[in-house]
């Protein structure tokens, strides 16, 4: 029993101890749990950290190698590119030199050719000189022509006046208006009057007056030109550009007269009048005989042609009867 009481008192103590221990453990459980968690976490962290740093180191190694590889590749590429660019620059520079030379040459030779421009301008000056000279000559020529025409007009007017004033010519008895005795020499009009040939005005003088230069008086053959005129005696032989036809209504001018003796002779001269014919009076029969002979040999046409020709003969023969 004592042991039971002891155990019972121990039970109480035991229970109490148990409860105390439980409560003590209960109290410390939290703390110890936390502590354990902490230690575990820290340890795990260390583990992980070590693992991570290991991983990092490995990664670094990989990246280092990779980067070196790519950088070297890139560098090789860059070197190639730089080399290429250097070459291109060199080529371009050389090309620029060539182009520069070429463009300078081309522009100087073809586009802004100094010598061509110089020679062009010289050519222009020379051409101008030439043209000026030629124009001067042309003008001179034209002026001379005009003056000449003027003079011709004046002269024809004067001659016409002289022709109209022919009656003012001085005679042996009485000096004319233009030949005054007080003058040292006769007036030029006087000379003209002396030269002008007077023509009795015919019906055609009216027409002649209106177109003086074109159609001269009825008798003169042509209008010669400057000093000559139809009225001036001495110029007859000059040629004209236009053939002047004789006016139709004029009397036919008689050609040179024959000597009176010739005409008398013609009147008195008797031709050889005989009773004989110039041909024989059997001429007709002989001719016909000839024809008939030829007729036998020839054709119809031949005969016809001969018969036609034979017709002429009777007429011929008849004329002397």
């Amino acid at each position, binding site marked *: 029993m004592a042991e039971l009481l002891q155990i019972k008192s121990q039970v109480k103590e035991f229970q109490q101890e148990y409860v105390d221990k439980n409560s003590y453990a209960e109290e410390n459980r939290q703390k110890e749990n936390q502590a354990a968690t902490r230690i575990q976490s820290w340890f795990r962290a260390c583990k992980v950290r070590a693992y991570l740093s290991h991983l990092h180191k490995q990664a670094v190694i990989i990246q280092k190698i990779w980067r070196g590889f790519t950088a070297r590749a890139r560098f090789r590429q860059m070197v190639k590119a730089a080399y290429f660019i250097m070459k291109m620059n060199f080529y371009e520079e050389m090309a620029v030199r060539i182009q520069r030379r070429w463009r300078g040459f081309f522009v100087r030779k073809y586009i802004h050719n100094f010598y061509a*421009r110089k020679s062009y*301008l010289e050519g222009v000056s020379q051409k101008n000189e030439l*043209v*000026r000279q030629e124009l001067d000559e042309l003008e001179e020529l034209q002026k001379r022509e005009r003056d000449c025409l003027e003079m011709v007009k004046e002269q024809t007017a004067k001659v016409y006046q002289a022709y109209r004033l022919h009656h003012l010519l001085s005679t042996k008895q009485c000096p004319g208006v233009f030949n005054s005795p007080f003058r040292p020499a006769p007036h030029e009009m006087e000379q003209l009057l002396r030269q002008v040939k007077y023509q009795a005005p015919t019906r055609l003088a009216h027409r002649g007056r209106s177109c003086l230069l074109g159609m001269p008086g009825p008798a003169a053959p042509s209008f010669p030109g400057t000093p000559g005129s139809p009225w001036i005696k001495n110029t007859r032989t000059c040629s004209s550009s236009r053939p002047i036809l004789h006016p139709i209504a004029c009397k036919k001018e008689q050609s040179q007269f024959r000597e009176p003796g010739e005409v008398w002779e013609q009147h008195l001269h008797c031709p050889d009048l005989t009773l004989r014919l110039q041909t024989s009076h059997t001429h007709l029969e002989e001719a016909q005989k000839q024809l008939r002979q030829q007729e036998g040999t020839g054709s119809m046409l031949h005969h016809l042609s001969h018969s036609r020709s034979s017709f002429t003969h009777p007429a011929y023969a008849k004329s002397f009867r």
Partner: protein
Amino acid sequence: MSQRQIIQVFEQYQKARMQFVQTVADLASRPQNIEILHNAGVMSMLRPLMLDVVPSIQQTAALALGRLADHSDDLAEAVVKEDILPQLVHSLSLQNRFYKKAAAFVLRAVAKHSPELSQSVVASGGVDALVLCLEEFDPGVKEAAAWALGYIARHNALLAQSVVDAGAVPLLVMCLLEPELALKRIAASTLSDISKHTPELAQTVVDNGAIAHLAQMILNPDAKLKRQVFSALSQISKHSVSLAELVIEAEIFPAAVACLRDPDEYVKKNVTTLMREVVQHTPELSQVIVNCGGMAAVIDYLGNCSGNLRLPGIMMLGYVAAHSENLAMAVILSKGVPQLALCLSEESDHTMKAATVWSIGQIGHHTPEHAKAVATANLLPKLLELYMDASSSEDLQAKCKKALKSILQKCTYLPGLEPLLYDAPSNILKHVVCQFSKVLPHDSKARRLFVTSGGLKKVQEIQAEPGSPLQEHINAINSCFPEEIVRYYSPGYSEVLLERLENYQPA
């Protein structure tokens, strides 16, 4: 009364009418009678006589009417108002050639005064009737019809178009081939009047082959014909490059230059006008004319004539020089600049002066060589004078300014620039000073000359705002010279020296 007596009455009346109409026609040929005739109511008297039975009375009445209408536009309007036109037009197709001539004369006399009157002629069908007349045989009728058409077409493009629409142009070109000189003249003048308005009209004229025929008539001895031919060719070529090229291809050019020595002054003027119209389009066309020696001929022509006749020549030189610098050099070598200087000094009309100034500007603005040629002819002071002159017209002043500016920007001929330092206003002065500042740094002789001729002194006297381009140029010039010289020439230096003298204490 017997038949004979009755008929005698009629004959007397006819004689009276004839006499009246002939007297009126004679009186109408003198201008002083026309007012009196108009107040006496001649228009209403003549109108029934135009319907008269006797053809010679009709013709003389038409002639009198034409002379009256020719004289003044009131009478021409009276002709229109009295409704004579439709009847004239109607009888144009029926009557004989003398009447046609007289009727065409009336239409011409009416149409010449104003576009409205021409429009009324067109409205009454006159153009078609006149074109029918152009197909007649008689050259007098053709001439009168062509003349009337020319006066109608002269006024404006619409009327010219109506003439062309009636089919006149081929007939006119055929008239050019006729042997009568008067007809050729009138046909050429009408073609010129038609083609002057628009390029399409000119193209129509060209399409009918007018150019070849006109080109053949260039060396004809008749002066009036040549006037009209050249006028027609210039009116055709003024519109466009292709028309001008067509005219040049007809190979008129070396031959036309000979006409520049014709005694008739209007021929010369029209040749120069033709050259101007051709030259203004492209450098190649100008080249053609320069190569055949046209430049020298025109410059000689400018020397020989005076007044308004010079204008086309001056403008031609300007157009040629405007295209490129070697053409401008060709103008200079042909002695164009002294001639233009002469023109500038001799002419007093402002439009002429403006044209001359413009031409000079076109010549001088290309390179320093050209500017030097202009400056040596002493033109720069003259241009400045014209610019400053208050009595110059605005157009002249504007052109002077433009020419001066453009020449000065290229001028490096310092003796020519110096006179301009003294009188020029500031906007011109800055260009002058700019040129000095460009040349002086490089040329020592020029610097010496600049100092001795008083140019440096003048430059110091110029007052410019600091910072303006003028001041910069002045500084650039001053930096070309040693400081003592610049100070010596600066204004007021003598006072400064005297002050220093006063303050000086001898030791």
